[in-house]
């Protein structure tokens, strides 16, 4: 677990920065400081939380919030299925408890592990590093709401994509390289987006194209 905390300490710092942005944005959207921090404690997902702010109004649109959270978190379903062969050594309830900290960077780094670590501990520890950063950042942003101007917040709206780009480079740097499936998924996503398809469907179809390319390559190798 400590190895996970150490490995993802950098991501923890970055999560802290994004947590500050979320805290400021949440307070701006009308949440109290307590509600902002409580949301970070319960959800621990930047994309889902930022999206929820878009719909935060009175009365609260519960169905819209639920659907948007489900669609935006669909990537986590893919991450959790990807980690199946790597996390098996503990009782199921321990594994499910450990999965509270499942995020993209710690899944990717756990899959890249070369040494015989306790994989669940590593996954959980890495998540803890990010979780602590995320919560601390949210607290800071919620309390010091004037830390960044509205203009700066607007300029930084692309920061989430930069974070995803960094995680992508963690994938590229370690483990097996699956260039063709990644490129196929990316091209499919661009085409589908240009066609005006909804983002959730773009996610499913784009990943399906990538998986098809891997499966086809596996078949060709076997033949």
């Amino acid at each position, binding site marked *: 677990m400590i190895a996970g905390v150490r490995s993802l300490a950098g991501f923890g*710092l*970055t999560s802290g*920065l994004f947590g500050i942005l979320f805290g400021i944005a949440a307070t701006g959207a009308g949440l109290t400081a307590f*509600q902002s921090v409580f*949301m970070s404690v*319960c*959800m621990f997902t930047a994309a*889902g939380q930022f999206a929820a702010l878009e719909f935060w109004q009175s009365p609260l649109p519960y169905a819209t*919030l*639920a659907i948007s959270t489900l669609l935006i*978190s*669909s*990537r986590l*379903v*893919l991450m*959790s*299925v*990807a*980690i*199946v*062969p790597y*996390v*098996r050594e503990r009782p199921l309830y321990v*594994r*499910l408890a450990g999965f*509270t900290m*499942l995020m*993209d960077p710690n*899944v990717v780094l756990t899959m890249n592990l070369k040494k015989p670590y306790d994989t669940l501990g590593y996954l959980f520890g890495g998540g803890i590093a990010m979780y602590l950063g995320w919560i601390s950042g949210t607290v800071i942003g919620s309390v010091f709401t004037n830390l960044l101007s509205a203009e700066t917040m607007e*300029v*930084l709206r*692309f*920061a989430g*994509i*930069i974070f*995803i*780009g*960094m995680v*992508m*480079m*963690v*994938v590229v740097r370690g*483990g*097996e390289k*699956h260039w063709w*499936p*990644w490129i196929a*998924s*990316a*091209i*499919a*996503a661009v085409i589908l*987006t240009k066609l005006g398809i909804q983002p959730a469907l*773009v996610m499913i179809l*784009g*990943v399906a194209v*990538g*998986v098809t390319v*891997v*499966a086809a390559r596996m078949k060709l190798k076997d033949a």
Partner: protein
Amino acid sequence: MIAIIMMGLIVYACRITGYLVGIQFSGIDKYRTILEALPGCALAVVLAPAAMNGAPHEIAALAATMIMMWFTGSVPVSTLLGLAILLAGGYYLV
């Protein structure tokens, strides 16, 4: 408060659903290659359209972050570089 708890439960359900489905298949190890490719595919699907629709300084910030990450592997350094370009571009180039 109820809405926040509801959203927290949905996110957790997403975190465990893939795993709970995956462990039902005893032969899932055969599909390890596909599972290894999944995270990259999921990230590429988010990244590519966003990069295509980004402003020039946003694309530059993303590219600089990824290149810095490739060469150094340092998350804080790459983040700070990306955010610096994003801020500089946002304020002065646009």
